[in-house]
Protein backbone atom coordinates (compact mmCIF):
# COMPACT_ATOMS: atom_id res chain seq x y z
CA UNK A 1 0.00 0.00 0.00
CA UNK A 2 2.72 2.47 1.03
CA UNK A 3 4.85 1.32 -1.91
CA UNK A 4 1.94 2.10 -4.25
CA UNK A 5 1.83 5.68 -2.98
CA UNK A 6 5.51 6.19 -3.88
CA UNK A 7 5.04 4.48 -7.26
CA UNK A 8 2.22 6.82 -8.27
CA UNK A 9 4.07 9.85 -6.95
CA UNK A 10 7.15 8.89 -8.99
CA UNK A 11 5.00 8.42 -12.10
CA UNK A 12 3.44 11.85 -11.51
CA UNK A 13 6.95 13.34 -11.22
CA UNK A 14 8.13 11.75 -14.48
CA UNK A 15 5.00 12.84 -16.36
CA UNK A 16 5.32 16.34 -14.87
CA UNK A 17 8.98 16.62 -15.87
CA UNK A 18 8.30 15.23 -19.36
CA UNK A 19 5.41 17.56 -20.18
CA UNK A 20 5.47 20.69 -18.02
CA UNK A 21 9.18 21.20 -18.65
CA UNK A 22 8.57 21.39 -22.41
CA UNK A 23 5.72 23.88 -21.90
CA UNK A 24 7.74 26.02 -19.46
CA UNK A 25 10.71 25.99 -21.86
CA UNK A 26 8.64 27.24 -24.81
CA UNK A 27 6.85 29.94 -22.80
CA UNK A 28 10.09 30.85 -21.01
CA UNK A 29 11.76 31.68 -24.34
CA UNK A 30 9.01 34.24 -25.02
CA UNK A 31 9.40 35.63 -21.52
CA UNK A 32 13.12 36.20 -22.14
CA UNK A 33 12.43 37.96 -25.42
CA UNK A 34 9.86 40.26 -23.80
CA UNK A 35 12.04 41.00 -20.77
CA UNK A 36 15.08 41.97 -22.84
CA UNK A 37 12.97 44.14 -25.17
CA UNK A 38 11.48 46.03 -22.21
CA UNK A 39 14.90 46.51 -20.60
CA UNK A 40 16.34 47.77 -23.89
CA UNK A 41 13.52 50.31 -24.12
CA UNK A 42 14.12 51.41 -20.51
CA UNK A 43 17.85 51.82 -21.14
CA UNK A 44 17.22 53.83 -24.32
CA UNK A 45 14.96 56.21 -22.38
CA UNK A 46 17.28 56.62 -19.38
CA UNK A 47 20.17 59.09 -19.64
CA UNK A 48 22.07 57.72 -16.62
CA UNK A 49 23.21 54.24 -17.48
Amino acid sequence: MAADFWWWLLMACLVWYSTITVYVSIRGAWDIRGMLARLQALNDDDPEQ
Partner: protein
Amino acid sequence: MSHFSWIDGSIVGLYLLATMVAGLSVRKYVGKVEHFLIAGREMDVYLGVASLAATEFGIVTCMSAAQLGYDNGFAGATVGITYGAAMFLVGYTGFCVKPLRDSGVVTIAELFEKKFGPRIRWLSGLVIVLGGLLNMGIFLRQGGEFLVLVCGMSPGRLEITMTILLCGVAIYTMAGGMLSVLITDYLQFIVMSIGLLAVTFLLMAEIPWTTMVDTVRDKYGEAGFNPLVNPNLGWSYIVFNSLLNVAVAITWQTTVARLLSAKDTKTGQRVYTATSFFFVCQFLIPAVWGIAALATLEPGVIPIGGNTANAMPIYLSRTVPLGLMGLLVAGMLAADMSTDSAYMLTWGSVIYNDLLAPFRHGRWSEKRGLLWNRAIIALIGVFLLIYGLWYEIQDGIWTYLTITGTIYLSSMATLLVACCYWPRANNWGAAGAILVGATFPLAYLVLQKLPATQELAKSIGPNYSGIAAFVGAAAAMIVGSLAKDLILGTPRLGDADGR
Protein backbone atom coordinates in the same frame (compact mmCIF):
# COMPACT_ATOMS: atom_id res chain seq x y z
CA MET B 1 34.73 1.89 -13.90
CA SER B 2 33.41 5.17 -15.28
CA HIS B 3 32.21 5.44 -18.88
CA PHE B 4 33.24 9.05 -19.47
CA SER B 5 34.65 9.39 -23.01
CA TRP B 6 35.49 12.08 -25.57
CA ILE B 7 31.85 12.00 -26.73
CA ASP B 8 30.73 12.87 -23.21
CA GLY B 9 33.45 15.51 -22.94
CA SER B 10 32.18 17.11 -26.17
CA ILE B 11 28.60 17.24 -24.84
CA VAL B 12 29.79 18.86 -21.60
CA GLY B 13 32.07 21.29 -23.49
CA LEU B 14 29.25 22.34 -25.82
CA TYR B 15 26.94 22.95 -22.86
CA LEU B 16 29.58 25.03 -21.02
CA LEU B 17 30.27 27.11 -24.13
CA ALA B 18 26.55 27.80 -24.71
CA THR B 19 26.14 28.83 -21.06
CA MET B 20 29.07 31.25 -21.12
CA VAL B 21 27.93 32.84 -24.39
CA ALA B 22 24.35 33.23 -23.12
CA GLY B 23 25.47 34.57 -19.75
CA LEU B 24 27.83 37.16 -21.21
CA SER B 25 25.51 38.25 -24.05
CA VAL B 26 23.04 40.04 -21.74
CA ARG B 27 25.64 42.35 -20.20
CA LYS B 28 24.60 45.14 -22.57
CA TYR B 29 21.10 45.24 -21.02
CA VAL B 30 22.46 46.08 -17.54
CA GLY B 31 22.13 49.83 -17.21
CA LYS B 32 21.33 50.14 -13.50
CA VAL B 33 21.91 48.41 -10.18
CA GLU B 34 18.19 47.51 -10.19
CA HIS B 35 18.69 45.65 -13.50
CA PHE B 36 21.71 43.87 -12.03
CA LEU B 37 20.08 42.77 -8.77
CA ILE B 38 16.42 42.12 -9.70
CA ALA B 39 16.34 42.22 -13.53
CA GLY B 40 14.53 45.57 -13.42
CA ARG B 41 11.47 43.67 -12.06
CA GLU B 42 10.70 42.50 -15.60
CA MET B 43 10.61 38.72 -15.01
CA ASP B 44 7.49 36.88 -16.17
CA VAL B 45 5.96 33.61 -14.88
CA TYR B 46 7.54 30.89 -17.02
CA LEU B 47 11.06 32.30 -16.91
CA GLY B 48 10.60 32.57 -13.14
CA VAL B 49 9.50 28.93 -12.88
CA ALA B 50 12.50 27.71 -14.93
CA SER B 51 14.88 29.90 -12.93
CA LEU B 52 13.56 28.94 -9.49
CA ALA B 53 13.43 25.23 -10.33
CA ALA B 54 17.04 25.37 -11.58
CA THR B 55 18.38 27.52 -8.74
CA GLU B 56 17.07 25.44 -5.87
CA PHE B 57 18.36 22.17 -7.35
CA GLY B 58 22.13 21.76 -7.37
CA ILE B 59 24.50 18.79 -7.14
CA VAL B 60 24.45 19.23 -3.37
CA THR B 61 20.62 18.95 -3.34
CA CYS B 62 20.77 15.93 -5.64
CA MET B 63 23.38 14.18 -3.48
CA SER B 64 21.57 14.98 -0.24
CA ALA B 65 18.24 13.67 -1.64
CA ALA B 66 19.96 10.51 -2.91
CA GLN B 67 21.60 10.07 0.49
CA LEU B 68 18.18 10.39 2.17
CA GLY B 69 16.88 7.68 -0.19
CA TYR B 70 19.88 5.41 0.44
CA ASP B 71 19.66 5.84 4.23
CA ASN B 72 15.86 5.84 4.67
CA GLY B 73 14.25 4.32 1.58
CA PHE B 74 11.28 6.10 0.01
CA ALA B 75 10.49 7.79 3.33
CA GLY B 76 13.62 9.89 2.76
CA ALA B 77 11.79 11.76 -0.02
CA THR B 78 9.19 13.10 2.46
CA VAL B 79 11.02 16.42 2.67
CA GLY B 80 10.20 17.00 -1.01
CA ILE B 81 6.49 16.73 -0.19
CA THR B 82 6.71 19.20 2.72
CA TYR B 83 8.80 21.54 0.55
CA GLY B 84 6.34 21.42 -2.37
CA ALA B 85 3.37 21.89 -0.03
CA ALA B 86 5.01 24.91 1.62
CA MET B 87 5.76 26.56 -1.74
CA PHE B 88 2.21 25.95 -2.98
CA LEU B 89 0.49 27.22 0.18
CA VAL B 90 2.68 30.34 0.42
CA GLY B 91 2.18 31.11 -3.27
CA TYR B 92 -1.57 30.44 -3.20
CA THR B 93 -2.35 32.40 -0.03
CA GLY B 94 0.30 35.11 -0.49
CA PHE B 95 1.31 34.58 3.17
CA CYS B 96 4.10 37.13 3.80
CA VAL B 97 5.17 37.15 0.13
CA LYS B 98 2.33 39.46 -0.94
CA PRO B 99 3.17 42.28 1.50
CA LEU B 100 6.88 41.66 0.82
CA ARG B 101 6.55 42.10 -2.96
CA ASP B 102 4.04 44.95 -2.59
CA SER B 103 6.60 46.88 -0.51
CA GLY B 104 8.92 47.21 -3.53
CA VAL B 105 12.12 46.33 -1.64
CA VAL B 106 15.23 44.65 -3.09
CA THR B 107 16.00 42.51 -0.02
CA ILE B 108 14.05 41.32 3.03
CA ALA B 109 16.29 43.27 5.40
CA GLU B 110 15.32 46.48 3.57
CA LEU B 111 11.68 45.82 4.52
CA PHE B 112 12.69 45.37 8.16
CA GLU B 113 14.09 48.91 8.24
CA LYS B 114 10.58 50.27 7.64
CA LYS B 115 9.29 48.49 10.74
CA PHE B 116 12.28 48.00 13.04
CA GLY B 117 14.77 50.72 12.04
CA PRO B 118 18.22 50.76 10.37
CA ARG B 119 20.09 48.79 13.07
CA ILE B 120 17.82 45.77 12.73
CA ARG B 121 18.16 46.03 8.95
CA TRP B 122 21.95 45.84 9.26
CA LEU B 123 21.85 43.03 11.83
CA SER B 124 19.38 41.06 9.68
CA GLY B 125 21.62 41.52 6.66
CA LEU B 126 24.57 40.19 8.65
CA VAL B 127 22.67 37.08 9.79
CA ILE B 128 21.36 36.45 6.26
CA VAL B 129 24.84 36.69 4.74
CA LEU B 130 26.44 34.51 7.45
CA GLY B 131 23.78 31.80 7.23
CA GLY B 132 23.70 31.94 3.43
CA LEU B 133 27.46 31.77 2.91
CA LEU B 134 27.92 28.96 5.46
CA ASN B 135 25.12 27.07 3.72
CA MET B 136 26.69 27.63 0.30
CA GLY B 137 30.20 26.88 1.54
CA ILE B 138 29.94 23.13 0.88
CA PHE B 139 28.49 23.39 -2.64
CA LEU B 140 31.84 23.41 -4.40
CA ARG B 141 33.36 20.40 -2.64
CA GLN B 142 30.19 18.31 -2.99
CA GLY B 143 29.96 19.18 -6.69
CA GLY B 144 33.61 18.29 -7.15
CA GLU B 145 33.30 14.99 -5.31
CA PHE B 146 30.31 14.06 -7.46
CA LEU B 147 32.31 14.72 -10.65
CA VAL B 148 35.33 12.77 -9.34
CA LEU B 149 33.16 9.75 -8.54
CA VAL B 150 31.00 9.85 -11.69
CA CYS B 151 33.65 10.71 -14.29
CA GLY B 152 36.48 8.77 -12.70
CA MET B 153 38.45 12.02 -12.56
CA SER B 154 41.68 11.99 -10.54
CA PRO B 155 41.00 13.48 -7.05
CA GLY B 156 44.17 15.55 -7.50
CA ARG B 157 42.47 17.49 -10.29
CA LEU B 158 39.37 18.24 -8.20
CA GLU B 159 40.58 21.63 -6.94
CA ILE B 160 41.69 22.97 -10.31
CA THR B 161 38.52 21.72 -12.07
CA MET B 162 36.21 23.32 -9.51
CA THR B 163 38.24 26.55 -9.52
CA ILE B 164 37.90 26.85 -13.31
CA LEU B 165 34.17 26.08 -13.09
CA LEU B 166 33.63 28.64 -10.32
CA CYS B 167 35.57 31.28 -12.29
CA GLY B 168 33.31 30.69 -15.30
CA VAL B 169 30.17 31.09 -13.17
CA ALA B 170 31.58 34.19 -11.45
CA ILE B 171 32.50 35.84 -14.77
CA TYR B 172 29.02 35.62 -16.30
CA THR B 173 27.32 36.48 -12.99
CA MET B 174 29.51 39.57 -12.60
CA ALA B 175 28.78 40.57 -16.18
CA GLY B 176 24.99 40.44 -16.25
CA GLY B 177 23.84 39.95 -12.65
CA MET B 178 20.26 38.70 -12.37
CA LEU B 179 19.81 38.91 -16.15
CA SER B 180 22.67 36.45 -16.69
CA VAL B 181 21.34 34.29 -13.86
CA LEU B 182 17.85 34.15 -15.41
CA ILE B 183 19.08 33.42 -18.95
CA THR B 184 21.57 30.75 -17.90
CA ASP B 185 19.05 29.29 -15.42
CA TYR B 186 16.65 28.87 -18.33
CA LEU B 187 19.26 26.94 -20.37
CA GLN B 188 20.31 24.97 -17.31
CA PHE B 189 16.69 24.10 -16.50
CA ILE B 190 16.35 22.45 -19.93
CA VAL B 191 19.69 20.58 -19.81
CA MET B 192 19.12 19.51 -16.19
CA SER B 193 15.61 18.21 -16.96
CA ILE B 194 16.83 16.15 -19.94
CA GLY B 195 19.63 14.66 -17.80
CA LEU B 196 17.30 13.84 -14.89
CA LEU B 197 14.72 12.17 -17.11
CA ALA B 198 17.21 10.22 -19.25
CA VAL B 199 19.03 8.76 -16.24
CA THR B 200 15.78 7.89 -14.44
CA PHE B 201 14.32 6.06 -17.46
CA LEU B 202 17.63 4.17 -17.91
CA LEU B 203 17.67 3.26 -14.23
CA MET B 204 14.07 2.01 -14.26
CA ALA B 205 14.84 -0.12 -17.32
CA GLU B 206 17.84 -1.64 -15.49
CA ILE B 207 16.24 -2.25 -12.09
CA PRO B 208 12.60 -3.37 -11.83
CA TRP B 209 10.41 -1.38 -9.45
CA THR B 210 9.69 -4.54 -7.44
CA THR B 211 13.44 -5.00 -6.83
CA MET B 212 13.69 -1.49 -5.39
CA VAL B 213 10.61 -2.02 -3.20
CA ASP B 214 11.91 -5.40 -1.96
CA THR B 215 15.34 -3.91 -1.20
CA VAL B 216 13.82 -1.11 0.87
CA ARG B 217 11.53 -3.58 2.67
CA ASP B 218 14.45 -5.93 3.44
CA LYS B 219 16.71 -3.13 4.72
CA TYR B 220 14.27 -0.87 6.54
CA GLY B 221 10.89 -2.63 6.76
CA GLU B 222 7.86 -0.34 7.08
CA ALA B 223 10.22 2.50 8.09
CA GLY B 224 11.44 2.64 4.49
CA PHE B 225 8.00 3.73 3.30
CA ASN B 226 6.47 5.57 6.25
CA PRO B 227 8.47 8.48 7.70
CA LEU B 228 6.44 8.44 10.93
CA VAL B 229 7.79 5.02 11.98
CA ASN B 230 11.33 5.66 10.69
CA PRO B 231 13.74 6.06 13.65
CA ASN B 232 15.87 8.59 11.70
CA LEU B 233 12.82 10.69 10.77
CA GLY B 234 9.57 10.64 12.78
CA TRP B 235 7.31 13.51 13.82
CA SER B 236 10.15 15.78 14.93
CA TYR B 237 11.73 15.54 11.46
CA ILE B 238 8.46 16.34 9.69
CA VAL B 239 7.62 19.24 12.03
CA PHE B 240 11.13 20.72 11.73
CA ASN B 241 11.24 20.36 7.94
CA SER B 242 7.73 21.82 7.57
CA LEU B 243 8.76 24.87 9.62
CA LEU B 244 11.98 25.09 7.65
CA ASN B 245 10.26 24.79 4.26
CA VAL B 246 7.72 27.53 5.03
CA ALA B 247 10.58 29.72 6.28
CA VAL B 248 12.52 29.01 3.07
CA ALA B 249 9.51 29.94 0.94
CA ILE B 250 9.04 33.30 2.65
CA THR B 251 12.60 34.35 3.58
CA TRP B 252 15.34 32.35 1.79
CA GLN B 253 16.79 35.23 -0.18
CA THR B 254 17.64 33.17 -3.30
CA THR B 255 14.01 32.00 -3.50
CA VAL B 256 12.56 35.39 -2.61
CA ALA B 257 14.79 37.03 -5.26
CA ARG B 258 12.50 35.50 -7.94
CA LEU B 259 9.47 36.99 -6.19
CA LEU B 260 11.15 40.40 -6.01
CA SER B 261 12.29 40.21 -9.67
CA ALA B 262 8.75 39.38 -10.86
CA LYS B 263 6.93 42.12 -12.74
CA ASP B 264 4.13 42.21 -10.13
CA THR B 265 2.92 40.45 -6.98
CA LYS B 266 0.49 38.16 -8.80
CA THR B 267 3.27 36.96 -11.11
CA GLY B 268 5.53 36.26 -8.13
CA GLN B 269 2.82 34.19 -6.43
CA ARG B 270 2.17 32.24 -9.65
CA VAL B 271 5.90 31.43 -9.89
CA TYR B 272 5.68 29.89 -6.41
CA THR B 273 2.59 27.77 -7.06
CA ALA B 274 3.78 26.62 -10.50
CA THR B 275 7.21 25.62 -9.16
CA SER B 276 5.87 23.76 -6.12
CA PHE B 277 5.61 20.30 -7.70
CA PHE B 278 9.14 20.58 -9.11
CA PHE B 279 10.36 20.45 -5.51
CA VAL B 280 8.57 17.12 -4.97
CA CYS B 281 10.23 15.79 -8.17
CA GLN B 282 13.67 17.11 -7.25
CA PHE B 283 13.70 15.12 -4.01
CA LEU B 284 11.91 11.94 -5.10
CA ILE B 285 13.84 11.34 -8.35
CA PRO B 286 17.33 11.49 -6.74
CA ALA B 287 15.99 9.48 -3.75
CA VAL B 288 15.06 6.74 -6.23
CA TRP B 289 18.62 6.94 -7.62
CA GLY B 290 19.86 6.42 -4.04
CA ILE B 291 17.54 3.42 -3.62
CA ALA B 292 18.84 2.00 -6.93
CA ALA B 293 22.37 2.28 -5.49
CA LEU B 294 21.17 0.51 -2.33
CA ALA B 295 19.72 -2.30 -4.46
CA THR B 296 22.77 -2.88 -6.65
CA LEU B 297 25.99 -1.91 -4.84
CA GLU B 298 27.62 -4.89 -3.18
CA PRO B 299 28.29 -4.68 0.59
CA GLY B 300 31.64 -3.07 1.28
CA VAL B 301 31.48 -0.43 -1.47
CA ILE B 302 30.05 1.89 1.17
CA PRO B 303 31.44 0.58 4.49
CA ILE B 304 29.37 0.69 7.69
CA GLY B 305 29.58 4.26 8.95
CA GLY B 306 31.02 5.39 5.60
CA ASN B 307 29.82 8.38 3.60
CA THR B 308 26.53 7.21 2.08
CA ALA B 309 26.38 10.38 -0.05
CA ASN B 310 28.92 8.69 -2.34
CA ALA B 311 26.68 5.68 -3.08
CA MET B 312 24.60 7.31 -5.83
CA PRO B 313 27.52 8.75 -7.85
CA ILE B 314 29.42 5.43 -7.58
CA TYR B 315 26.32 3.60 -8.83
CA LEU B 316 25.87 6.03 -11.74
CA SER B 317 29.55 5.76 -12.73
CA ARG B 318 29.06 1.99 -13.19
CA THR B 319 25.65 2.10 -14.86
CA VAL B 320 25.35 5.11 -17.16
CA PRO B 321 26.71 4.32 -20.67
CA LEU B 322 28.74 6.43 -23.13
CA GLY B 323 26.92 9.47 -24.47
CA LEU B 324 24.34 9.41 -21.71
CA MET B 325 27.19 10.02 -19.24
CA GLY B 326 27.90 13.34 -20.99
CA LEU B 327 24.23 14.25 -20.68
CA LEU B 328 24.25 13.33 -16.99
CA VAL B 329 27.39 15.37 -16.25
CA ALA B 330 26.12 18.34 -18.31
CA GLY B 331 22.79 18.11 -16.47
CA MET B 332 24.45 18.02 -13.06
CA LEU B 333 26.85 20.84 -13.97
CA ALA B 334 23.80 22.81 -15.13
CA ALA B 335 22.12 22.17 -11.79
CA ASP B 336 25.22 23.25 -9.89
CA MET B 337 26.11 26.32 -11.95
CA SER B 338 22.57 27.70 -11.80
CA THR B 339 22.64 27.35 -8.02
CA ASP B 340 26.12 28.84 -7.61
CA SER B 341 25.41 31.88 -9.80
CA ALA B 342 22.09 32.70 -8.12
CA TYR B 343 23.52 32.24 -4.63
CA MET B 344 26.60 34.40 -5.34
CA LEU B 345 24.42 37.18 -6.75
CA THR B 346 21.86 36.97 -3.95
CA TRP B 347 24.21 37.03 -0.96
CA GLY B 348 26.17 39.75 -2.77
CA SER B 349 22.97 41.79 -3.13
CA VAL B 350 22.39 41.63 0.64
CA ILE B 351 25.97 42.78 1.33
CA TYR B 352 25.57 45.70 -1.09
CA ASN B 353 21.99 46.65 -0.28
CA ASP B 354 21.97 46.17 3.50
CA LEU B 355 25.44 45.80 5.01
CA LEU B 356 26.93 48.65 2.98
CA ALA B 357 23.81 50.85 3.38
CA PRO B 358 25.23 52.88 6.34
CA PHE B 359 28.44 53.54 4.38
CA ARG B 360 26.79 54.67 1.15
CA HIS B 361 26.61 58.35 2.06
CA GLY B 362 24.86 60.33 -0.64
CA ARG B 363 23.56 58.70 -3.80
CA TRP B 364 26.03 56.46 -5.56
CA SER B 365 26.08 56.58 -9.35
CA GLU B 366 24.79 53.49 -11.13
CA LYS B 367 28.29 52.84 -12.45
CA ARG B 368 29.81 52.87 -8.96
CA GLY B 369 27.03 50.65 -7.61
CA LEU B 370 27.57 48.10 -10.38
CA LEU B 371 31.33 48.10 -9.76
CA TRP B 372 30.81 47.37 -6.05
CA ASN B 373 28.32 44.60 -6.78
CA ARG B 374 30.74 42.92 -9.18
CA ALA B 375 33.62 43.20 -6.70
CA ILE B 376 31.47 41.64 -3.94
CA ILE B 377 30.60 38.66 -6.18
CA ALA B 378 34.31 38.14 -6.89
CA LEU B 379 35.06 38.16 -3.14
CA ILE B 380 32.28 35.63 -2.48
CA GLY B 381 33.90 33.40 -5.13
CA VAL B 382 37.22 33.57 -3.26
CA PHE B 383 35.45 32.71 0.03
CA LEU B 384 33.77 29.71 -1.60
CA LEU B 385 37.09 28.37 -2.85
CA ILE B 386 38.78 28.66 0.55
CA TYR B 387 35.87 27.44 2.72
CA GLY B 388 34.82 24.73 0.29
CA LEU B 389 38.25 23.15 0.30
CA TRP B 390 38.77 22.75 4.04
CA TYR B 391 35.40 22.29 5.77
CA GLU B 392 34.49 18.65 6.47
CA ILE B 393 30.81 17.77 6.99
CA GLN B 394 30.10 15.92 10.23
CA ASP B 395 26.54 14.69 9.59
CA GLY B 396 24.61 14.08 6.37
CA ILE B 397 24.51 16.82 3.72
CA TRP B 398 20.83 17.65 4.25
CA THR B 399 21.41 17.96 8.01
CA TYR B 400 24.26 20.44 7.43
CA LEU B 401 22.12 22.46 5.00
CA THR B 402 19.18 22.61 7.41
CA ILE B 403 21.32 23.55 10.44
CA THR B 404 23.18 26.36 8.66
CA GLY B 405 19.95 27.51 7.02
CA THR B 406 18.23 27.64 10.41
CA ILE B 407 20.82 30.20 11.62
CA TYR B 408 18.86 32.74 9.67
CA LEU B 409 15.58 31.08 8.71
CA SER B 410 14.17 30.85 12.24
CA SER B 411 14.81 34.50 13.11
CA MET B 412 14.12 36.03 9.68
CA ALA B 413 10.84 34.11 9.32
CA THR B 414 9.81 35.35 12.77
CA LEU B 415 10.73 38.94 11.87
CA LEU B 416 8.91 38.80 8.54
CA VAL B 417 5.69 37.34 10.00
CA ALA B 418 5.76 39.91 12.83
CA CYS B 419 6.60 42.72 10.40
CA CYS B 420 3.66 41.85 8.14
CA TYR B 421 1.01 40.79 10.64
CA TRP B 422 1.78 41.97 14.21
CA PRO B 423 1.44 45.73 14.77
CA ARG B 424 3.01 45.56 18.27
CA ALA B 425 6.29 44.04 17.05
CA ASN B 426 9.27 46.33 17.66
CA ASN B 427 13.06 46.41 17.53
CA TRP B 428 13.57 44.87 20.98
CA GLY B 429 11.63 41.79 19.92
CA ALA B 430 13.44 41.72 16.57
CA ALA B 431 16.89 41.84 18.19
CA GLY B 432 15.90 39.09 20.64
CA ALA B 433 14.58 36.88 17.84
CA ILE B 434 17.79 37.29 15.80
CA LEU B 435 19.97 36.47 18.81
CA VAL B 436 17.97 33.43 19.97
CA GLY B 437 17.35 32.13 16.43
CA ALA B 438 21.07 32.09 15.62
CA THR B 439 22.19 30.74 19.00
CA PHE B 440 20.52 27.30 18.80
CA PRO B 441 21.91 26.12 15.44
CA LEU B 442 25.36 27.66 16.05
CA ALA B 443 25.54 25.99 19.48
CA TYR B 444 24.54 22.68 17.89
CA LEU B 445 27.28 23.01 15.24
CA VAL B 446 29.86 23.70 17.99
CA LEU B 447 28.62 20.80 20.16
CA GLN B 448 28.99 18.52 17.12
CA LYS B 449 32.60 19.55 16.57
CA LEU B 450 33.88 19.28 20.18
CA PRO B 451 34.84 15.68 21.11
CA ALA B 452 33.62 16.19 24.69
CA THR B 453 30.10 17.18 23.61
CA GLN B 454 29.55 15.06 20.49
CA GLU B 455 27.41 12.54 22.39
CA LEU B 456 25.26 15.34 23.82
CA ALA B 457 24.74 16.76 20.31
CA LYS B 458 23.76 13.30 19.08
CA SER B 459 21.22 12.87 21.90
CA ILE B 460 19.60 16.26 21.12
CA GLY B 461 19.58 15.66 17.36
CA PRO B 462 19.27 18.27 14.61
CA ASN B 463 15.45 18.19 14.54
CA TYR B 464 14.84 19.25 18.15
CA SER B 465 17.66 21.80 17.89
CA GLY B 466 15.95 23.26 14.80
CA ILE B 467 12.46 23.29 16.32
CA ALA B 468 13.90 24.99 19.42
CA ALA B 469 15.38 27.73 17.22
CA PHE B 470 11.98 28.49 15.65
CA VAL B 471 10.06 28.38 18.94
CA GLY B 472 12.77 30.36 20.73
CA ALA B 473 12.89 33.08 18.06
CA ALA B 474 9.09 33.49 18.14
CA ALA B 475 9.07 33.62 21.95
CA ALA B 476 11.89 36.19 21.96
CA MET B 477 9.97 38.36 19.48
CA ILE B 478 6.84 38.33 21.67
CA VAL B 479 8.63 38.81 25.01
CA GLY B 480 11.01 41.48 23.67
CA SER B 481 8.26 43.50 21.98
CA LEU B 482 5.94 43.38 25.00
CA ALA B 483 8.83 44.25 27.33
CA LYS B 484 9.59 47.42 25.34
CA ASP B 485 5.89 48.32 25.40
CA LEU B 486 5.81 47.82 29.15
CA ILE B 487 9.08 49.58 30.01
CA LEU B 488 9.12 52.47 27.52
CA GLY B 489 5.44 52.69 26.69
CA THR B 490 6.18 52.93 22.96
CA PRO B 491 3.39 53.69 20.47
CA ARG B 492 1.59 50.65 19.09
CA LEU B 493 0.17 51.65 15.75
CA GLY B 494 1.58 53.09 12.56
CA ASP B 495 4.13 51.83 10.10
CA ALA B 496 7.39 52.87 11.72
CA ASP B 497 6.33 52.40 15.31
CA GLY B 498 8.71 49.59 16.11
CA ARG B 499 12.00 51.49 15.96
